């Protein structure tokens, strides 16, 4: 063979071997990282909450607790707080106390089994009604309707908020459930949510899922949530 390439950089074999190596190493790294992340992202249990262990994705029994979302100077962003907050005076680190309860549909003693069944139904409904093709959940989805990541904490749905008042309900969860079943009766904007045939059980389950989702640690997304009047931080 004449005209054999003398430069490695123009050698096909060099690039083919490099491509194989690079792909292999990147894939192995991704798998290692995935194992680590999966370990950290398993859903917590009621036992974790009893032992005051913070999990990125807490047990569904958080629906029995008051949930908040506050700035943690130690981590440099907002974190979810479950059942009241404790601040470390040295570092400013915010942690959950897992103490302060809050009624959810009149009860604050939902067992782990009941709460899990509720969010199971909620998640199935969220998928079956295709929520993600109008709303974003954890910021992913379509951009036609508000993000639902921290919707549970949204000031508009609080006791002073216009949306709770509109439905005439006496609690946030009831207001949300009423709205979900008859969205066209309670227009929140010119752009209205359609009637998706959500049943009372499904509505309750979806609201449980929203409360549970607001307790997921999203590394501070969304930022400054509720900074406007009547918002989470401004409330105090």
């Amino acid at each position, binding site marked *: 063979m004449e005209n054999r390439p003398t430069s490695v950089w*123009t050698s*096909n074999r060099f*690039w*083919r071997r490099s*491509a194989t190596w690079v*792909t292999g*190493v*990147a*894939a192995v*790294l*991704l798998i290692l990282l995935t194992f*680590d*992340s*999966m370990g950290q*992202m*398993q859903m917590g249990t009621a036992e974790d909450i009893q032992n005051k262990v913070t999990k990125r*994705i807490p047990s569904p029994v958080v629906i029995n607790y008051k949930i908040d979302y506050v700035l943690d100077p130690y981590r440099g962003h907002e974190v979810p707080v479950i059942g009241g907050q404790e601040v470390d005076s040295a570092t400013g680190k915010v942690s959950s106390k897992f103490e302060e309860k809050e009624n959810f549909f009149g009860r604050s003693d939902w067992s782990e089994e009941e709460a899990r069944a509720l969010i199971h139904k909620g*998640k*199935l*409904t969220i*998928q*079956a*009604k*295709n*929520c*993600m*093709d*109008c709303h*974003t*959940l*954890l*910021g*992913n*989805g*379509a*951009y*036609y*309707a508000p*993000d639902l*990541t921290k919707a549970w904490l949204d*000031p*508009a749905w609080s006791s002073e908020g216009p949306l709770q008042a509109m439905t005439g309900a006496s609690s946030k969860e009831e207001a949300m459930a009423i709205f979900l079943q008859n969205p066209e009766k309670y227009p929140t904007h010119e752009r*209205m949510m*359609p009637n*998706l045939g959500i049943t009372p059980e*499904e509505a309750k389950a*979806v609201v449980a899922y929203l409360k549970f*989702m607001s307790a*997921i*640690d*999203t*590394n*501070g*997304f*969304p930022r*400054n*949530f*509720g*900074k*406007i009047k009547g918002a989470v931080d401004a409330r105090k």
Partner: protein
Amino acid sequence: MQGNRLYEGQRLALKYFTVAVVLFGAQLLFGLIAAIQYLYPSFLYNTLDFSIARMVHINALVVWLLYAMIGAVYWLLPDEAGVEVVGVKLGTIGFYILTAAVAVVVLVYLFVQVGPGTEMTLWLITEGREYIEAPRWADIGIVAVVLVFLYNVYATVMKGNHTGILVVLMADLIALAGLYLAGMFYTDNISIDQFWWWWVVHLWVEATWEVYVAAVGGYILIKTLNANRQVVEMWLWIEVAMMFGSGILGLGHHYFWIGTPEYWWEIGALFSALEPVPLVGLFVHVLYDWGKERGKGNTIKNVPAFAWLTVETFGNFLGAGVWGFMHTLPQINLYTHGTQWPAAHGHLAFFGAYVAIMISAIYIGVQGKAGLKEMKMTRTGWWAISLITVGVLLMTVSLTLSAYTQTMVERGMHGATWEGYFIAQANKWFVQGMGWRLAAGLSVIAGYAALVYDLLTVTKKQPEEVYKAEEAAAQTA
């Protein structure tokens, strides 16, 4: 006229291309409905709501691209391997099954729309997960058809030539098909749900599809410019190295805010930053070859295909590279995530990286079907490429404008609440961006009409000299 003997595999490819073009039309139609609903929310309210229009819009996109991708492989496979596609009958049956399944899925989307919150809905109606909403039964059908397709490809290459393009495609297609399995399960844990969902979505569009595009792009360059195979294959391997080296861990830029650990910030920010680099490689590659071949006075063998490939290189770099990197750093993404930003990026990236090259491949098929040695661009073809490209660019710019407004007003000023969201949506700058987007969409639809007309007639509307050259070639043969 030159005898137009095609491989059976190439006839199958033309079937795939035909359905792809029809679904492309469906994508644009439902995109138009969704764009109208942004401005006039009562349009089709409670009949064909935004969620349904949008779902059909993005699903039609994914499915038509997959059709065109499978079609392009069936087109180049016998040509590259030098033998007929093995198991082409099975492949044809697969095509009809897949098309019937797609039709049923779309009808269910349109007329059933949503179901009760049970497992049954996920099996029969929709899985409700953006981009991969197809119900579970269809997932299983898709996997079966893809297995047949993989068998066709592997068996054919084993029998024929092992060109570099085919080797890359074989490795890439198996990864592409395998990744789909990551999206076929249900979990109550939404963070884990989205974690694996991104394996499908990201590792498709930012890794395996990109490599696929490079392989097909290489083939088109050889066909249109007589590009040196050695050079094409070298760039192909560089593309594989850089795309997978950067793109696989670039997955991290989707793991900033979904309940994943904080270390993904650092991985996602910079790994994805390198993703435009291989795209630049592809771009340089095309320019290099063009200049080289042009100097020798070589003519372009298929002008429309080459023109669309040029749109591809610019569009890929701008849409996927620049528009992606603009909002990939976590500090910026914290405010842009879940706004119109990803919409602006997505429109230009999908168009630039995939739509343009698939149209290019379809033109190669049209040329091959007629058996023309050379194909010029018609006036309608120029209108098609101009209206579509300008339309998508304008759409991207308008969505970017709306995105800036939304990011600043909703996220920056109002802290991402329900109220902040609607204040931003009502902002005049946001609304005008949506208006221009609709206008741009109409331009794309006009371009699509021209494109369909051109695909059907381009081989009959060639200038005289093309036919004369064909006759001369036929006589000497």
